[in-house]
Every structure is written in structure tokens, then in C-alpha cells.
């Protein structure tokens, strides 16, 4: 199929689905809406695969030059809004290794989620609305990854934010869902403010939004700032850090991560699609997209590394103490994305051909698959036991064999056990970190160990431990076929994805290179993972009181981690006690009483003045005469004095 036509359709089909389902969905039956949405997504999936395959494998001179260097190619680029001659927002379709990869990731996960939701959301009120929002999200996310310029990215960035808001708040009668959606939107919006200001600063100096111009001549970007500095850092660093702030919001980096755990109030497939596989990696994608520019500022890269490393550790620790299985997965997502961020931060081209970049993208790909798998698995479990907490589960392996096996594959993949996909991508990342500075390498290996521990803690608590007593009254059952097919498919992908020669396709300068495992790093990380899994097995395979004893021993630490180190309380304090009470309310009071009071004062002074002098108008003719007489005498006197 023609490339131009198929790339148009990739964007327009989900948009059309959104409009059709959104406007006429109420009149459709659930079944029709679901099938229509899934079919639309299926076609988009095929088109996206075709486009990605054309890009990677056709060997056409548009996409790859004689030396094997992959080229950047914009399929179409329409002018949407012209600010000035050079500052133009265009809507286009940009093909390069990472956007082609993202097309595959997004459409795959999205299609799986569409299919899965047919079973999971069956009979829910607003089923059509759900599919409409899913299509809207897919459209926005696809638009984001194929953006040809930073402003197009910002546009779709906002759109994914709104779709996420709508989907988190899908169960809008539930107050917790409403407040979670609000929180997600406002926190990311705050981050987007940084993104916007970053774009403004960057465009002020470079006079362009275009990614090609920016990334192909990063030195020119640096030069255009003319060495301007602000508060000790170069303006380029400021711009890049502010843009990264946008990424921090969407990718839930500390301290802007607080919305993601709450976002689990949304339907589980939505969590799988938006809050695990696609939207939350937008921040990573943004940094990767702008990577050549980031290379110009080592301070900005340092910020990314530090934020990433800190977040990864923090989220891993918190994940060890959560009871809600979706929250465990949410924190695990935060931790894994932080992994990717750190890998980008350490990816200097001088070290191993900027291997961190490739590793980060590789992990993005594998993580999307196995994390979607884990979330969908969790959805199947929640569907079966009607609770999010693992205390209501245990011993489920007998009742839900398919879910059990696929979930286990997901856990092994994320823990980094060969030959599952997570092992390869994580190993590449760790190697990159180790090469940059051993500190990051060991630090992140420790985080990887924690990952293995909490994932297996979760796995054992769900599927082993002891059988829950409630099963007698309400026997859990395996999920229907629409739900298990996506699980099986994603599990297969998670098994084999590690063998994709990623270095051939996605590298920072788009030159292919060969990946080889660095066994010294690999052995360390495998040993760490195995040890962590063994500990988890010892703790959680059979019911015992070891975990409880340990918890009691380190009660304060456990409580702090369980309460997520009081970030939410801190935010509550800042927003409610400071901004709301100390800023908004005083301003509103000031407006009503001081500003409006002044205006009312003018009115009442006028009023008073007139009532003070109205007594003169007494209505008695005789007093008028007196005044008249005195007045004329006074005038006469004045005239006389003047004449004399």
C-alpha cells in the first residue's frame, strides 16, 4: 500500500473511530461499538506494521543510505498554524527508527487492549464511551510519536493528557476516580508548563520548532543562544531541563510521580495501555527525540540521570510494600521508566557508541510488552476475585492456569532472567551505566534486584501463599477467550523480543551496530536477580510469618514506604494549605473586600455627600430666599471690592 495513504490512515482511522463512537455511540449496542472499535484498531495495527516494515526492511533510498545509515523521512507535513514565517506548527508524519518502533508498540498494545476490553468491560455502563476514548487516546499517542516538530508533539502531548484524564475518570460516579483523574491532569499540566516554557525559550533562540533542524545541527542550536546564561546555567540547559520537566510529568519521575499510582483508579486495560506501555514512556521518547540537542548540555543529561536513578530506587522500595496489586505494578512502571531515563542520561556517544540510547529504546519496547502483559494479567485476576488487594488472593494458580503462566513469564521478563526479553534490554542498560560510571551501574543493579524481589513477592502472593477462604463462596474462574488471547500473545512477544537485534534498527545516530552481551555485567545482574527471587520465594511461597516479623522489626521504614514516603501528604499540604488557603482565598477576599470595596466606597462616598447636602434643598421657599439674599449680597460685596 502506498506509504502516504497508509500513514494518513494510521492517524485518521482512530480519529474517525473516536468521532463515530463518540457522536453516535449512544445509539449503538455495546457489541457493535466494541467490535467496530476493535476492527478499526486492527486495521490501524496492520497499517502501522506495514509502515514500520517498509521503513526498516524495504531498503529504499528514502529510508536508508548506501552506508546503512537510517534516514529520517517525513511522509507529509501540513501547515497547521503559522505564528511567524519561521515559527510554524505543522502536522506531519515523521519516520525514523524510534517513531517506527513506537508505531509498532502503540498499535500492538492498543489492539490487545481493545480486544481484551471486549471481555473485561462487558456490560459496563458507558461501554461505547470507553471505546471512543480508547480511540482518542490511540490517535493522540500516534500523533505524538510521529510529530515532525516539537509543537506538534506538545499538541498531542496535551491530547494524551486529556484522554488519560477521561479514561482514569471513566467511572465518574466514584469520587476516588474523579479525584485521581483530576490529580493526574493537574500534575501533568504543571509539568507541561515547564515543557511549554522550555519550547518558548528554545524557539526564541533557534527560531524553529522543527525536529530535523534542531537535531541535525545541535551545534547550531547551541550557537544560536550566543552563550546566554541565566542564574549560572546556560539558557540551553534551562530550556532542556524545562522540556525534560514535561517528560518528568508524563513519565512520572520523582517528584512529579504522585499521579500515576492514583491513576490506577481507571479500568485496568486502560492502565495497561496508557499508564504502563505507551503514554508514560512519552517522556522517555521526548528525551530520545531531542537527544542530539541534549548532548549539547552535559548538565541537562546529568539532571536526567540523577532524577532517573533516584526515582528508580524510590519506586522500587515503595513497590515492595504496596498491597494493591495495581499499585505494585504502577510503582514498578515508575521504576522501569526511570531505568530508561537513566540509560538515556548516561548515553554519551563517546562511550560504546551511545549504547545507553539504544538500550533505553530497547527496554521501552520490551517493557511495553511485558508490562502490558502484567497489567492485563492483573486485570484478569481482579476480574476473577473482584478485589485489587493481594490479601484477597493467593493460590490462584489452580483456578487460572493461563493467567498464571503468562503472569509468570511477565515476572521473569521484568526480573531480567534469560532468555526472557527483559534480560537483554536491562543488561544493555546496565552495561551502558556501568561504562559511564560504575556508581550508576551498581546502583541500578541494586534496583534491578529489588525489581525481581517485589515482582516475585507479588507473584507468590497472588498465585501461591495460601488459598483465600472466599473462594468457597465465589470460585474464581479463568478469564474468557477475548482476554486470554492478548495475554498469550503478549507473553509470546515477551519471550522472544529479547532476540531482536535492536542495535541494527535503533541507535542514537541511526547507524546500525552489533549488540553483544557484556557477560561481566550480565552475570552480576543474573546473580542479583536470582538471589532476589530466592529471597522472595523463601518469604512468600508458602504462608509464614517471616514477612510480618520483618515488617514489625522495621516498622517505621515499612510504614514510610507504604505511605510512599509522604509525598502525597506533602503535595496535599502545599496545594491545600498553602496555595488554596494562603493564596487563593486571600486573593478572593482581597478582590471582594479591597478592590470591590474601593469601588463601593466611591459609590457610598458619593451617596453620603449628596445626602449631606440635600438638606439645603429644604422645600421651604423662605429658606431659599435667605440663601438667595445672602448669596446676592456676597456677590455684590465681591463686585464692590473688585471695583474699588
Amino acid at each position, binding site marked *: 500500500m502506498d506509504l502516504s495513504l497508509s500513514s494518513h490512515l494510521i492517524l485518521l482511522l482512530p480519529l474517525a473511530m473516536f468521532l463515530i463512537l463518540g457522536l453516535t455511540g449512544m445509539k449503538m449496542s455495546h457489541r457493535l461499538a466494541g467490535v467496530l472499535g476493535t476492527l478499526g484498531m486492527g486495521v490501524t495495527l496492520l497499517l502501522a506494521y506495514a509502515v514500520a516494515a517498509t521503513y526498516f526492511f524495504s531498503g529504499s533510498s528514502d529510508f536508508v543510505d548506501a552506508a546503512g545509515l537510517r534516514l529520517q523521512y517525513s511522509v507529509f507535513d501540513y501547515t497547521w498554524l503559522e505564528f511567524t514565517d519561521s515559527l510554524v506548527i505543522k502536522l506531519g508524519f515523521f519516520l525514523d527508527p524510534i517513531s517506527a518502533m513506537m508505531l509498532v508498540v502503540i498499535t500492538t498494545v492498543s489492539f490487545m487492549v481493545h480486544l481484551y476490553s471486549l471481555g473485561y468491560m462487558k456490560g459496563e455502563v458507558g461501554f461505547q464511551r470507553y471505546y471512543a476514548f480508547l480511540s482518542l487516546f490511540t490517535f493522540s499517542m500516534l500523533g505524538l510519536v510521529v510529530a515532525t516538530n516539537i509543537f506538534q508533539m506538545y499538541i498531542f502531548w496535551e491530547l494524551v493528557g486529556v484522554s488519560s484524564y477521561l479514561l482514569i475518570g471513566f467511572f465518574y*460516579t466514584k469520587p476516588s476516580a474523579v479525584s485521581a483523574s483530576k490529580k493526574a491532569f493537574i500534575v501533568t499540566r504543571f509539568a507541561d508548563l515547564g515543557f511549554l516554557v522550555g519550547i*518558548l525559550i528554545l524557539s526564541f533562540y533557534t527560531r524553529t520548532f522543527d525536529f530535523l533542524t534542531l537535531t541535525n545541527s545541535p551545534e547550531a542550536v547551541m550557537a544560536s543562544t550566543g552563550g546566554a546564561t541565566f542564574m549560572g546555567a546556560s539558557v540551553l540547559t534551562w530550556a532542556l531541563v524545562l522540556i525534560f520537566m514535561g517528560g518528568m510529568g508524563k513519565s512520572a519521575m520523582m517528584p512529579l510521580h504522585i499521579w500515576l499510582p492514583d491513576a490506577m483508579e481507571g479500568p485496568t486495560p486502560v492502565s495497561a495501555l496508557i499508564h504502563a506501555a505507551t503514554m508514560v514512556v512519552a517522556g522517555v521518547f521526548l528525551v530520545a527525540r531531542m537527544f542530539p540537542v541534549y548532548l549539547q548540555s552535559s548538565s541537562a543529561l546529568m539532571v536526567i540521570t540523577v532524577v532517573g536513578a533516584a526515582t528508580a530506587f524510590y519506586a522500587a522500595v515503595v513497590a515492595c510494600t504496596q498491597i494493591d496489586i495495581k499499585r505494585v505494578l504502577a510503582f514498578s512502571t515508575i521504576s522501569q521508566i526511570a531505568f530508561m531515563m537513566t540509560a538515556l542520561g548516561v548515553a554519551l556517544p563517546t562511550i560504546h557508541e551511545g549504547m545507553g540510547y539504544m538500550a533505553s529504546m530497547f527496554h521501552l519496547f520490551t517493557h511495553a510488552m511485558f508490562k502490558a502483559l502484567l497489567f492485563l494479567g492483573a486485570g484478569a485476576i481482579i476480574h476473577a476475585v473482584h478485589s485489587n488487594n493481594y490479601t484477597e488472593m493467593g493460590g490462584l494458580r489452580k483456578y487460572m492456569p493461563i493467567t498464571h503462566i503468562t503472569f509468570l513469564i511477565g515476572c521473569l521478563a521484568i526480573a531480567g532472567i534469560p532468555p526472557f526479553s527483559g534480560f537483554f534490554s536491562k543488561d544493555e542498560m546496565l552495561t551502558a551505566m556501568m561504562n559511564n560510571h560504575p556508581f550508576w551501574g551498581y546502583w541500578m543493579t541494586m534496583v534491578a534486584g529489588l525489581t525481581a524481589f517485589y515482582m516475585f513477592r507479588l507473584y507468590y502472593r497472588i498465585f501461591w501463599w495460601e488459598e483465600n477462604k472466599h473462594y468457597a463462596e465465589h470460585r474464581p474462574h479463568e478469564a474468557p477467550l477475548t482476554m486470554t488471547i492478548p495475554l498469550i500473545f503478549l507473553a509470546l512477544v515477551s519471550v522472544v523480543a529479547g532476540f531482536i537485534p535492536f542495535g541494527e534498527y535503533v541507535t542514537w545516530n541511526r547507524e546500525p551496530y552489533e549488540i553483544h552481551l557484556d557477560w561481566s555485567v550480565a552475570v552480576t545482574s543474573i546473580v542479583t536477580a536470582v538471589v532476589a527471587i530466592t529471597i522472595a520465594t523463601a518469604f512468600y511461597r508458602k504462608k509464614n510469618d517471616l514477612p510480618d516479623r520483618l515488617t514489625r522489626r522495621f516498622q517505621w521504614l515499612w510504614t514510610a514506604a507504604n505511605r510512599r514516603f509522604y509525598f502525597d501528604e506533602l503535595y496535599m499540604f502545599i496545594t491545600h494549605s498553602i496555595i488554596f488557603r494562603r493564596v487563593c482565598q486571600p486573593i478572593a477576599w482581597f478582590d471582594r473586600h479591597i478592590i470591590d470595596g474601593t469601588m463601593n466606597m466611591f459609590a457610598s462616598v458619593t451617596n453620603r455627600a449628596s445626602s449631606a447636602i440635600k438638606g439645603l434643598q429644604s422645600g421651604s421657599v423662605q429658606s431659599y430666599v435667605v440663601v438667595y439674599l445672602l448669596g446676592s449680597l456676597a456677590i455684590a460685596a465681591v463686585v464692590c471690592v473688585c471695583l474699588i
Partner: protein
Amino acid sequence: MFSNILIYFVVIPVLMLAGLALTRNIKQVRAVAVVGSTALLALSGVVLYQFLQLRAAGNTDPMLMTGSWSWFEPLNINLAVGVDGISVAMLILSSIIVFAGSFASWTIDQPKEFFLWLVLLSTGVFGFFISIDLFTMFMFYEVALIPMYLLIGVWGSGKKEYSAMKLTLMLMGGSAFLLLGILGIYYHPAEGGQYTMNLVEIARQGVDRGWQYFLFPMTFVGFGVLGAMFPFHTWSPDGHASAPTAVSMLHAGVLMKLGGYGCFRVAIYLMPEAANELAWIFLILTGISVVYGAFSACVQTDLKYINAYSSVSHCGLVLFAILMLNSTAMTGAIMQMLSHGLMTALFFALIGMIYGRTHTRDIREMGGLMKIMPFLAVGYVIAGLASLGLPGLSGFVAEMTIFVGSFQHADLFHRAFTIVACCSIVITAVYILRVVGKLLFGGVQNEHHRELTDATWWERLSVVTLIVCVAVIGCFPNFFNDLVGQPFQTTFASIIDVIK
């Protein structure tokens, strides 16, 4: 005289007034209102088409379709009309809102009298936008203001007499400044200039430099009062809260735009030198408006107050961008006027419809309306998303044009203030989502609300018209950008270049 198409913007409302005077029952009133407002909508469409034709034919005059008829010769007062891209956009906005407003007041009490005043108000609005003569502009401005007093005082709700009085007095205070400014401009042309009231002529010959420093603040504040500039905005919350639905729509949607339009057309267009030097004072005031309005909106509990403060914030952005004196930001300002006009009218229409059912506007007493009146609730969500700047709806386009344009300013002070103004996008999100969360989502607060009905066909028509317009601007911004940006890039840009 009647060969000029623009004059029909005044003729049609006058015919409507005559028609309304003859009506006997509500059906006839509705018929006149619908026919008239549809005619106005069609007329503005025709004017847009002809305007584009003329521009496409290469006519680069500052004002097109001009006409001038002498009215009072000794003072050079003419009924002079003419339009450029900005006025065409404003005419379209006004006719859309008059159209939607007519449907929103379908079941008003004493319809004949109500529509008489409403049509008189729109006569003033249309007359203002087509005039290019200072005196007639001022006259139409007053014609638009006075009916407001009666419309709020008679058909309003709450403490309506107080609000109506406050609104009228404050706006009249503004127009006192304005009159002074206009007379000053007339009597103090630059050296060698003629006494004239014609805007284009004055812009060509300039205003005396020394007097500009006095006249610019006069006119800017005069129009700024209507544009809800801090600290002269306090008429807006009370006025909007008390006004009936259609009047709120027309007032926030169109009348407040008279302020922004006047600030540009009279204060800045005629006195660019003073504007350039005094802009910083007003930039601070409008910058405060933007953030201050948004913060105030966060703690209000009355739907209309929230929206009124949000208008203060959004209209502050209009004046803020105008003062940047660069073509992108000013284009953004006009886009913001269009966008704010449409979406705030949408908001007020929806609030009026919700209030008409629940008889309360206190968000604490309502909840879960999404279940009860899905159409209105979805409309409210869309309006909210437009207001907080969702791409694809008009608010985003306007705000981004303003921010990008303002940030291109060479001066650090202006850029820093742009960042301050940018902060409003976060605060806007806070108060919009707060309302949406409390009002539409969650459980039903009041059991009596369960029996309420969703929108009727005329309400739907009104809401859909506005939503479609908001979406069209949001999806195809470049057309509007070209339309309203053209004057800034040609006639006005040369003036700006001269100063800088």
C-alpha cells in the same frame, strides 16, 4: 447609502426592533428573533466572503467596503463604516452569539420587551464594529451599554438592582475617560494634520506626541474597564452573576470584546508611540489580571462567579497580548477574543440552562449531573476543555499564539511576564477540573435533581452552534490566523516598525 453592505448590520437590527414592536405573542417574538439573527449570521457570512474576495484580488487598503455619510458637518462627524480582518472576525463572533443567545432565551418572561432591549444592544455592538469614525463608534458603544442596565435590572436574578447599577456606573465611568480621550484625539492631531474623526485618517496623520502620553492612558483605561482590566474588573463578577442567560452570553461573549477591540483600534492603533513607552504599566496590570483572575476563580462556589473570574483572566490575556506590540501576539489577542467569546458564551448558556433546572448555581449543592443531563454535562466538559486549552478547540490556538508571540519580544521584562502569564494554564486547569469534578461527576447531591430533564431542542441548537464554532477554530486555526493577522502584518506592522 444602502448600497454599502455593512450598513445592513445596523439596518437589520432596526428592522427587528420595528418587527418586535408589532408582535403580539411569544411565537411572533421568537419568529422575529430567529429570522433576524439568522439574517445577521448570513450577512456576516456574505461579508466574510466578499472581504476575502477583495483581499484575494489584491486590495491592500487598511479598511475595505468603506462608506462615509456626513452627519454633523461642523465637527466632522460622519457615519463612516469599513472593515478589516479583525472587524470581520468580530462581526462573525457577534452574529453567532446573537444567534445562539436568541435560542437560549426561548422561554424568557416578557419576551417582547426583553428582545427589544437585546436587539438594541446588538445594534450597538454591530454598529461599533463597523464604525471607523470615533464619534459614531462612541455613540454605538453607549447604545450597547445602556440596555444592559435594564436587561440585568429587570430580568436578572439575585441582587440584580445592585449589580445592574454597579455595572452601568463603572462602564459609564470608563466611557467618561473615553470621551475625554476621543475629544483629545480630535483636537490634537500631529503637526500639519486636519481635524478629523475618521480612524484611518487619524492613523495616517498621527496624534500630537505630547498629548499622546495623556490620551493613551485615557482611552486605554476607558476601554480597559469594559475589557475587565485589573483593578476595574469588579463589575464583571456581580454583573454576570445577576444577568439572565442570553445577556451574560452577549455581555461576556461580545461586549467585553468591545473593550479589547477598542483598546487596539483606538488606543494603540492611533497612538503607537505612547503605547510603546507606556505599555509596561498596563502590562503589569493585565499580567496581574491574568493570574489574579485565575486564582480568584479557584475558590468561588457560584458557577457564574467562577466563569466571571475566568473571563477576567482570559480577557486580561487579550489586553496583555495587545500590549506586546508584535504582530504574532496581537493576532493571538484577536484569536483569544474570538475564542473566549465563543467559549464563555457556551459556558454561560450551559450555566443558565443548568440553573433553570436546578435553581441553584452553588456547586456545593449539585453533583453527578452527568447522569441526569448528559447533553448539558458533555457540553460543559467540552467548554471546560476549551477553556483550559485543549488542542483541537479554540482556546489552545489563541493562548499558544499569544505565548509564542509574546515570548519573541526582545526585552527580558516582557518575556518574564509572559512566563507569569503562562502559569495561568495550570491554574485554569485547577478551577475548571474542580468545577467539572464537583458539578458533573460523583454522586447525585440532591435527590430532587434526579427528575430533571436534559436539554430541549432549542437549547441543543444553541449549544451545538457554539461547540461547532469552537471546534472549527481549534481545528483549522490558520484560516482565522490569516484573517485577523493580516492587518498586523501589513498596515500595523509599518507603524510599529517606525517606532522601533
